[in-house]
């Protein structure tokens, strides 16, 4: 009995320490999760920041379109977006995007559709989220399932078609903490959205042994999985998605 109580106490203490060390970002309302306020120069130029909603865009395009074919970095406000660039067919104004033909362009009546102070989504976009398979965290949408079931059919390219990815190696990684199940990384679910070069070699470079620093503390600082899974892809609160009890 004493042993059981001690084991329970130690487990609770370990969990408490882990929770204290892993400071998760605050939870946003589901319709605001993944919505960015882009403000590199907007306020300096006396304009409202541009609001970019990932959940609206990812229904129409996979991540690789914007983060490989179009020149958007993963980290907000690090891409040198300019109004002139947008109007000249770069960034948001790339042909097939906000070029005034495929979707509304960068002319006067449309400015306020992106340049606004609030992250709040339109009702039709909130309703569109509600129709997708549910998840407990983030947008409360299971995007992987939505894609697999064909609820959404995002375009995988604008101009550069790619062969279907056949690499579906599933990695299993030992957790550093006692009582924490191993982490799994399925390539297949990721390459449905991303290009290989989105992650390799810059974010994950096994050759340079960066994975020896592959710890939750670093991930929560925005490295490795944290590049996407803190702000856009399902958040870290969803422990069991990566650390399932059964492999």
């Amino acid at each position: 009995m004493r042993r059981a109580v001690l084991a329970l106490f130690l487990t609770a203490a370990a969990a408490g320490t882990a929770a204290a060390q892993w400071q998760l970002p605050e939870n946003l309302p589901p319709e605001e999760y993944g919505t960015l306020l882009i403000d590199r120069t907007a306020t300096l130029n006396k304009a409202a920041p541009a609001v970019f909603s990932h959940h609206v865009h990812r229904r129409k395009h996979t991540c690789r379109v914007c983060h490989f074919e179009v020149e958007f970095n993963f980290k907000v406000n690090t891409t040198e977006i300019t109004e002139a660039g947008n109007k000249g067919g770069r960034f948001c104004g790339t042909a097939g995007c906000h070029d005034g033909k495929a979707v509304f362009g960068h002319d006067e009546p449309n400015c306020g559709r992106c340049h606004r102070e609030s992250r709040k989504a339109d009702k039709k976009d909130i309703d569109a989220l509600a129709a997708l398979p549910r998840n407990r965290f983030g947008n409360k949408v299971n995007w992987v399932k939505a894609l697999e079931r064909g609820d959404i059919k995002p375009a995988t390219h604008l101009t550069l078609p790619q062969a279907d990815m056949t690499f579906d190696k599933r990695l299993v990684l030992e957790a550093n903490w006692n009582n924490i199940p191993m982490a799994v990384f399925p390539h297949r679910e990721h390459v449905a959205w991303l290009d290989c070069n989105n992650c390799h070699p810059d974010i994950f470079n096994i050759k340079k042994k960066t994975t020896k620093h592959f710890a939750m503390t670093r991930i929560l600082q925005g490295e490795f999985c944290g590049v996407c899974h803190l702000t856009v892809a399902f958040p870290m609160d969803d422990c069991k998605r990566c650390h399932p009890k059964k492999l």
Partner: protein
Amino acid sequence: MRSVSIRRSLVLLASLVLLAMTVPAVHSAEGGDGWRKEFDDICGKTMAAQSLGTEELGRLVDRCDKLKPQIENLGESERKVYLRRLKMCRDLYRYVLDSKREEAK
């Protein structure tokens, strides 16, 4: 006699002007489409990188290096966009190539 000579000179001049206008057009058509086709062909294989052999990966890295100077000569917008993308492709091919060579040791 003199008018024939003037006419010949004019015809010659016109021919030279036409030639001068045609040569850059042909050159730009070759250069213009050429780099883009090569870019699409190289970077259209990134999702298959893991299944490519080391020789093919090495060839792709070399092709990236050969294409880079052509892209550096493009206008500002295209240069910025495509140099970044070319670098992403090259880095991936180099990474997979090195990983495969390491595995083979």
